[in-house]
């Protein structure tokens, strides 16, 4: 996997991708298909950051109408078309989502959201609350509303990342793990400042372009490049139960989850997300907290997740909790990913800020960047995701 170390011996690439998570791996995959010579530089191991700490969601159900929903639908089509031949590699599962609301008010909001999503091309099917048990036999009774989203799907994010990198390597990409980026070499020419090379712990790599795909650490990389990028870590916990016979068929979550993803709240936000896995375990989320990169387990957060999940599936109270993990989502203050070229430093691109949706949006993000970098028109407009919206912000 690991190529010979970069060194002073004049290594160069067209593009250096910083970060070997799902987004960086997808960038390497699509860029090699456009003929770029790509080097991926990763500080840790493959998928060591956010990509190994989530559930591998490919969701359209939790996207409100707007650019993110467009990117989600675009990505969703890529999974089914261009990438369909590889789906076994990353355990693609078209399990479908079931979103439910417990209060009358929540129910109205959910049905209104679904109606709006339908207009944008989402397959959203209202479910009679009394018939929800046909979908999920163990769900609580007395729901106010439910919507089935057949397009919601899942992949194993570690396998996704590893295999996208493998496919990129087969097409000529070079992947270095255990190599940190320490800075950038910048040239000043008549057309302004532009990147000449990436400095790493193992020596410089000359390049035309750099893609900052460092997830929640993307702000640190931007700082090394002398630009400010307001990406921050938003911590989440996932609880994993003992293996059970099939108990939860879909990705099931409470409608409040959508509000939670869009929330400005800096404190603890919790909404139930419950799903079964092929291994028989049940994954239970979700929490959102701004606590920096603090990894220690917080009982209030874990307790709140358990309470919300038991409220949705009362049977879970008796089920044993086997393990739990913590991770950090790349949070962007306006809840939109940051995708595209940074006008402040030519050659610098960003592909981050997807918060909890980075696995699902990785492929769309990467394909659009590959088109833009090749000078082609992009399949959907990248302007809403442009880093330019943060450029007024003074560097830290």
């Amino acid at each position, binding site marked *: *996997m*690991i190529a010979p170390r970069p060194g002073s011996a004049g290594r160069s690439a067209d593009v250096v991708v910083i970060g*070997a998570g799902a987004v960086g791996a997808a960038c390497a995959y699509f860029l090699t298909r456009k003929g770029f010579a790509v080097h991926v530089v990763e500080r840790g*191991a*493959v*998928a*060591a950051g956010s990509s*190994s700490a989530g559930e591998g969601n490919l969701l359209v159900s939790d996207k409100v109408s707007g650019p993110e929903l467009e990117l989600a639908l675009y990505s969703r089509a890529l999974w089914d078309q261009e990438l369909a031949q590889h789906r076994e590699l990353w355990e693609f599962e078209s399990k479908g989502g079931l979103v439910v609301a417990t209060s009358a008010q929540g129910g109205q909001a959910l049905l209104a959201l679904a109606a709006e999503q339908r207009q944008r091309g989402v397959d959203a099917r209202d479910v009679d609350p009394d018939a929800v048990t046909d979908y999920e036999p163990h769900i609580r009774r007395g729901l106010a509303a439910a919507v089935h989203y057949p397009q919601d799907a899942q992949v194993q994010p*570690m*396998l996704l990342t*590893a*295999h996208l*990198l*493998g496919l990129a390597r087969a097409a000529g990409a070079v*992947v270095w*793990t*255990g190599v940190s980026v320490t800075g950038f070499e910048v040239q000043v020419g008549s057309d302004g400042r532009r990147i000449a090379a990436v400095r790493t712990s193992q020596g410089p790599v000359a390049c035309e372009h750099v893609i900052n795909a460092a997830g929640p650490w993307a702000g640190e990389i931007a700082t090394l490049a002398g630009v400010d990028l307001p990406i921050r870590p938003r911590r989440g916990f996932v*609880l994993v*139960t*003992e*293996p059970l016979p099939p108990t939860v068929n879909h990705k099931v979550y409470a409608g409040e989850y959508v509000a939670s993803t869009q929330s400005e709240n800096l404190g603890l936000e919790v909404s139930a997300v419950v799903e079964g896995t092929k*291994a028989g375990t049940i994954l*239970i989320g979700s929490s959102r907290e701004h606590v920096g990169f603090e990894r*220690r*387990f917080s*009982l209030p957060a*874990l*307790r709140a997740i*358990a*309470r919300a*999940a*038991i409220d949705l599936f009362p049977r*879970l*109270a*008796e*089920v*044993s*909790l*086997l*393990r*739990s993990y913590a991770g950090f989502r790349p949070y962007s203050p306006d809840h939109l990913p940051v995708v595209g070229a940074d006008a402040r430093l030519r050659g610098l691109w960003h592909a981050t800020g997807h918060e909890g949706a980075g696995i699902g949006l990785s492929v769309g993000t990467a394909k659009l960047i590959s088109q833009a970098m090749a000078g082609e028109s992009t399949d959907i407009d990248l302007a809403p995701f442009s880093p330019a919206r943060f450029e007024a912000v003074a560097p830290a």
Partner: protein
Amino acid sequence: MSVHPSGITKQPSYDVAVVGGGPAGLAATVATARLGRRVVLIDAGAQLGGQYWRHPDLSSAGAHDHAGHRDWEVFEALTERIRRHRQTGAAVHLAATQVWFIEPPGPDTGAPAWTLHLAPTCGVQDDRMPRTVRADRLILAPGCYDRQLPIPGWDLPGVMAAGGVQALLKGQRTLAGKRAVVAGTGPFLLPVAAQLARNGAKVVAVCEANRIGRWAKQPLALARTPAKLAEAASYGWSLARARIPYLTGTVVMRIEADSSGNQVGTVKLGRLRSDGGVQPRPKRLEVDLVALGWGFTPALELVSASGAETRVDVDRSLVAVVDDRQQSTVAGLYIAGEATGVGGAQLALAEGELAGIAAADATHLERSRVRALGREIRRLRAFAVAMHRSHPVPPRWSEWLTPETIVCRCEEVTYARVSEASTRLGATDARTLKLLTRCGMGWCQGHVCGFATAALAAAGQTRPLNAEDLRPLAKQFPCAPVPLGSLLED
């Protein structure tokens, strides 16, 4: 020290909490109570004693034969003193209770003391059992479990951990098979073979991977621990009397099913060469029980959860870092017994007592005892180091694996998948290997395959095993399985 409510209440508070009822935990509890501190002893077992003094329910008939236990009189003396301290209210024993979460004191949590969240080991929650306890000081004595290595066929019924075979004998008086081979490395293979023979099994061989000559390189450690030599000699005598061959430099490299196809039938032996490789031997043994032991892995769930620093010991186990008073790198947290480095019951007793004295803030009152314990600990630790150097896991053990060999039994992960993740998918460390293959993610949470997974991750990169390989396989939350509903209660 603060005033405490008497008896068990909803959230009782103590001067000291001890977790673990084996030799280290018992010694710690007695020392703490003797020095006038109120102590709660939390133990997962229904009865005290840990793995070392595991025994049937003493009320059951015929249970008073303790021939299989060493130092039984020490156990009786310790439990008698705990019984008396319980009568005065100085000590409380919570049996069949596991700690699933530890909250340290301090500015982070806003709590003035350690808070331990409890759940019953199995079965229904007893209403009288507190769901949390608080204590100013915490002593962890979690013990260890058998260290295992995968072998082709080790997932067949009839293959057991050596410690599991012994636990069945000690705890249930049950013989796991009639015709046994005991294999692996270390002095622990001897008592297991001797106990099997005494209980009527035919032990066809003890296969010790290493050569006894390795001990000759550790003369000082042996000279300082004559009791250990005498113990080994007594087991050697038991083996000789039962005519059990002791084959050194020999490993079980393959286990095959009998004619039914679903039970152990034969084992194939191999000779460990001086270069660490394994040479197949023509010899096969017919058996219905294979007892395997490659030393022990300390149970580090609570240590990891507490945030105390860990390191790799001589035997390549992850262990807790402690100072010469058994205090960990976290103030107010003491660790004793196998979790500080596998060293046996005598060492655990000394460490437990020292931890108890230190946690009771009494080292200045007990200077001569502290000095004596320090000497005892250094002497026994030197022996343990010599033992680990004499009985290493064969460095090239993975060569006896086949692509189909199961590495993780819970998740049924084969060696072929581990190799693919390691060589093709970028699993350059144990965490990535675990997440890509699911090794160590099943029911046992890495208790069985954790060491092997970490070792294979390192071997895949042709580098030595390090602490970063072992740490991801020591889980943090929950420290023990707990019903989800228990999280809601306090």
